[in-house]
């Protein structure tokens, strides 16, 4: 993209640019060497070596400019909600190009095909493949293929031939173009561009079927484009009269070779990648690298074999995603996800900006009104006609019909982009005499489709009321029923003796489970790798995290760590504190925590006010104590190990406990547990009372609650000791947690004479050590109840331990969703 002939004035100008946008490189260079002046003759301490760093420097600067521009766009939400980012970037590119041109009068920076095809396109396509919704994609594969292959050929042929027809009529004036040149132009302008489509459609949010069809088409038509382009280019080179029928047949054969070969390369590399990630357990830190390197290699390999590189990397992403995601660690998965998104979005940004910049070059501009306008008209019209015709055919076979509005959006969403531009720039001027006309027309077409259509597609979609995609949280029920449907459908196809989609899918998934997964997945991953289980995990984890995060957000150590605050007061601090403060703090905290159970909100308010008034010294000490282990943790540095932060560990910890606890609680529900039931009843009564008159002390309450506390505490002891022990060796963070817990328990067992104190402490322990792990198997109060986060009730419903009755319709007093709906209940906890 950069530095074609960047010498002399070129960089002077860049400097001016950089001055405005990123600071002066020269000045920086000098600043870095403070003692520069006492240099000895002959040996220069400081040398200014611009040429040494020129190229990477300029690249880095451009990336910076593009990224800064993106920030700037998003400063105004209004602008970005109306104008697609791609259009803004093109305009910015035009402006920057204008500046460069004004300063230099040479178009120093353009989007070169090499940079585009080797560095900018692969990340975008890989991203598309790796995050491809596979089921949707394969479910609509037939439709996509038809549009990609027939549609593209249709577009290329009709556009080329029509232009040629008009040319023959003499409307375009005198041009040195033959039929083949027109067809060549038609073939490069015909393909819908994945980059442009992604950029625009991601902001529009049409329904997923429509999106996958347009987007899938744009990805898969690459093979057609490549073949058509190569065929016609070689025909042009040969000269029109020498083209024989054999060449045409060869062209058709080469289409199959290019597309299938590209796909095969992609699949092979996906296999390799999945296999490699199976064995990366001990090199976690470079794990994400494999994903990128191997997929990139698939791209390069198929490029080397002159197969469809886009198909290769797309299918590499599509095929490997399942296994890679299962094999690599969670952190690596996150890294891969973010890196991929970053690279793709960065590449996209640069592409559009440089499309703008490249346009500012008078040397490439050749205007021919008729040619340009007719091209615009033809590609739009023929796209629409093509879509309508193909949809008409498809709708006879499709289960979900593509309606008229879908067709409108599909026709209108046929955006052309950087691929066409890069291809047209690749043309050889000696062979294609009117290259400049083609280039300028392509630029116009790209700008028109990206800016004008991109700008208007959103209002159009709204106006037509196209079904939008809605983002829903994954639901367990939905997944389960979906699974049931899958099996039913495949069974129906089996029974009726037909081979359909479901039949194939079913057979494939059986094959996958029996063979592929066994080879390509870690053993541990095979176990946990079920989609439903995943959703379950996800939901659990989300709840746990949000639960913790909520506590953190509220700024309350008490929420999650408050038990330790309590502890702290009793723990021997090395830091001396005034005893009065200690007394007051402990008193306040105690009072508070006991309130926690009733109403977290009011507690929080109180706590906050307390904080304000509290002695800052004490507070500091407390916090210091609390956070100390974390700080120490952060000092550790290792290049090869990423130490998960405390938070992460705790989240995980919480999650594991939730799972374990859940499982345990089910076991216990199976066995009858009278004691718990009784307790549950007590709970409920108390709860109700508490709710009704939380201020009025109830006679029964003080009697019951301490009793409860004791039993519960005992259980606590039992339950906590075990997990705590096992996890201790894992990390400092958890050790810390464990210690505090133990402290608490030691403290409580030392004899609690204050009924107010004990509940609070328990609540604390439970709150910090995830509450849903807490005491009685069935009697567990929800953590909500305990700490009553003012939050939507749905939010935490899944967290709460399950107390479903095993009796199918029995009148079990304990309703299943009680944890969710449960009001503040657990004074005695």
């Amino acid at each position, binding site marked *: 993209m950069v530095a074609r002939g960047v010498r002399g004035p070129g960089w002077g100008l860049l400097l001016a640019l950089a001055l405005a946008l990123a600071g002066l490189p020269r000045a920086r260079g000098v600043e870095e060497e403070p003692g520069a002046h006492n240099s000895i003759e002959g040996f220069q301490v400081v040398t200014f070596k611009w040429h040494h760093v020129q190229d990477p420097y300029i690249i880095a600067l451009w990336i910076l400019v593009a990224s800064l521009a993106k920030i700037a766009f998003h400063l105004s939400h209004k602008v970005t909600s109306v104008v697609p980012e791609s259009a803004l970037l093109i305009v910015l590119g035009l402006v920057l190009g204008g500046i460069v041109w004004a300063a230099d009068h040479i178009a120093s920076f353009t989007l070169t095909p090499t940079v585009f095809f080797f560095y900018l396109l692969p990340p975008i396509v890989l991203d598309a493949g790796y995050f491809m919704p596979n089921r949707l994609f394969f*479910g609509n594969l037939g439709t996509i293929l038809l549009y990609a292959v027939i549609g593209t050929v249709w577009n290329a042929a009709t556009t080329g031939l029509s232009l040629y027809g008009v040319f023959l009529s003499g409307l375009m004036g005198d041009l040195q173009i033959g039929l083949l040149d027109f067809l060549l132009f038609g073939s490069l302008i015909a393909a819908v561009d994945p980059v442009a489509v992604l950029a625009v459609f991601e902001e529009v949010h049409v329904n997923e079927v429509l999106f996958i069809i347009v987007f899938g088409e744009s990805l898969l038509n690459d093979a057609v484009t490549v073949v058509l382009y190569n065929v016609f280019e070689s025909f042009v080179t040969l000269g029109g009269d020498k083209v024989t029928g054999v060449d045409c047949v060869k062209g058709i054969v080469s289409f199959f070779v290019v597309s299938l070969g590209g796909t095969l390369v992609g699949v092979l590399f996906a296999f390799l990648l999945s296999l490699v990630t199976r064995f990366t357990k001990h090199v976690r830190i470079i794990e994400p690298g494999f994903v990128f390197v191997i997929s990139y290699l698939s791209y390069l390999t198929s490029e080397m074999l002159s197969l469809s590189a886009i198909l290769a990397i797309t299918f590499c992403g599509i095929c490997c995603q399942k296994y890679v995601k299962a094999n690599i660690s969670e952190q690596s998965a996150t890294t891969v996800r973010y890196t991929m998104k970053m690279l793709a979005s960065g590449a996209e940004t640069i592409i559009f900006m440089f499309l703008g910049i490249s346009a500012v070059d008078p040397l490439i501009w050749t205007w021919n009104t008729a040619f340009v306008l007719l091209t615009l008209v033809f590609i739009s019209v023929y796209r629409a006609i093509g879509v309508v015709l193909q949809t008409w055919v498809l709708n006879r*076979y499709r*289960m*979900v019909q593509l309606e008229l509005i879908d067709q409108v959006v599909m026709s209108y969403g046929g955006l052309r982009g950087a691929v066409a531009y890069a291809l047209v720039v690749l043309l050889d001027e000696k062979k294609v005499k009117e290259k400049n006309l083609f280039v300028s027309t392509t630029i116009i077409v790209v700008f028109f489709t990206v800016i004008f259509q991109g700008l208007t597609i959103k209002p159009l979609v709204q106006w037509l009321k196209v079904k939008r995609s809605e983002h*829903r949280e994954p*639901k*367990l*029920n*939905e997944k*389960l*029923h979906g*699974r*049931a*449907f899958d*099996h*039913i*459908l*495949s*069974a*129906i196809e*089996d*029974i*009726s*003796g*037909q081979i*359909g989609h*479901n*039949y194939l899918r*079913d*057979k494939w998934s059986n094959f996958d*489970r029996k063979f592929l997964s066994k080879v390509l997945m870690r053993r541990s991953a*095979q*176990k*946990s790798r*079920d989609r*439903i*289980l995943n959703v*379950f995990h996800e*939901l659990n984890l989300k709840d746990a995290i949000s639960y913790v995060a909520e506590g953190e957000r509220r700024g309350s150590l008490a929420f999650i760590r408050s038990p330790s605050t309590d502890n702290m007061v009793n723990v021997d601090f090395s830091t001396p504190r005034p005893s009065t403060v200690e007394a007051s703090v402990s008193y306040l905290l105690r009072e508070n925590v006991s309130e926690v159970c009733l109403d977290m909100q009011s507690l929080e308010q109180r706590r906050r006010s307390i904080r304000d008034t509290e002695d800052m010294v004490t507070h500091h000490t407390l916090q210091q104590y609390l956070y100390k282990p974390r700080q120490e943790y952060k000092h550790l540095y290792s290049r090869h190990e990423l130490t998960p932060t405390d938070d992460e560990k705790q989240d995980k910890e919480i999650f594991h406990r939730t799972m374990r606890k*859940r*499982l345990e609680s*089910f076991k216990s529900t199976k066995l009858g547990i009278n004691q718990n039931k009784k307790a549950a009843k007590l709970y*409920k009564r108390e709860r*109700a009372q508490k709710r009704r008159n939380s201020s009025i002390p109830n006679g029964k309450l003080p009697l019951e609650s301490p009793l409860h506390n004791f039993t519960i505490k005992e259980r606590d002891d039992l339950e906590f000791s075990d997990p705590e022990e096992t996890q201790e060796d894992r990390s400092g963070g958890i050790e810390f947690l464990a210690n505090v817990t133990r402290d608490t328990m030691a403290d409580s067992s030392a004899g609690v004479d204050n009924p107010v104190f004990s509940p609070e402490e328990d609540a604390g322990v439970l709150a910090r050590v995830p509450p849903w792990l807490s005491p009685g198997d069935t009697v567990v109060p929800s953590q909500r109840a305990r700490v009553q986060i003012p939050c939507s*009730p749905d939010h935490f419903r*899944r967290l709460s331990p399950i107390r*479903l*009755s*095993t009796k*199918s*319709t029995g*009148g079990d007093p*304990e*309703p*299943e*969703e*009680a944890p*969710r*709906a*449960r009001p503040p209940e657990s004074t005695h906890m």
Partner: protein
Amino acid sequence: MRVSSDQIEQLHRRFKQLSGDQPTIRKENFNSVPDLELNPIRAKIVRAFFDNRNLRKGPSGLAEEISFEDFLTIMSYFRPIDISMDEEQVEQCRKEKLRFLFHMYDSDSDGRITLEEYRNVVEELLSGNPHIEKESARSIADGAMMEAASVCVGQMEPDQVYEGITFEDFLKIWQGIDIETKMHVRFLNMETIAFCH
């Protein structure tokens, strides 16, 4: 009831093949479908073919054997939505399909999917994966049940008991979820002609 004539012929051939040229099919006949063997919920699906509720022959119970007409009745649950249908018909169609699934879950025909029944289904569903233990399947079922309860009832009083998913609740759970592609078999869609059964 709309299934195309070609389809009917084809299905009839298949029916005969399954029944061994008998006028009716019994449960055992389904054992001869080899591909069905790998289906984790095949028992439930085969049962659905004989379920009186699905056959519209009664509120509960199982039929001993089914005729070709009954076979078609079951198959017609899977017909795709026709473009010519108006909204009400589409809704009706959707309900029927969901009712089929509901009946499969509600094995004791009491109009409720109880926890026990739900667990049972989930266990079977997940039995294809040897790595998932029964316990996890149960916990998933429990989680799903809680989710269902929260969707259907919302805030519940502490002493309220959620006894099971009724069909109304079931519809609520499915609200907003497309089943267009989920409960349709493509081959039943050729040149639909009216076929009144």
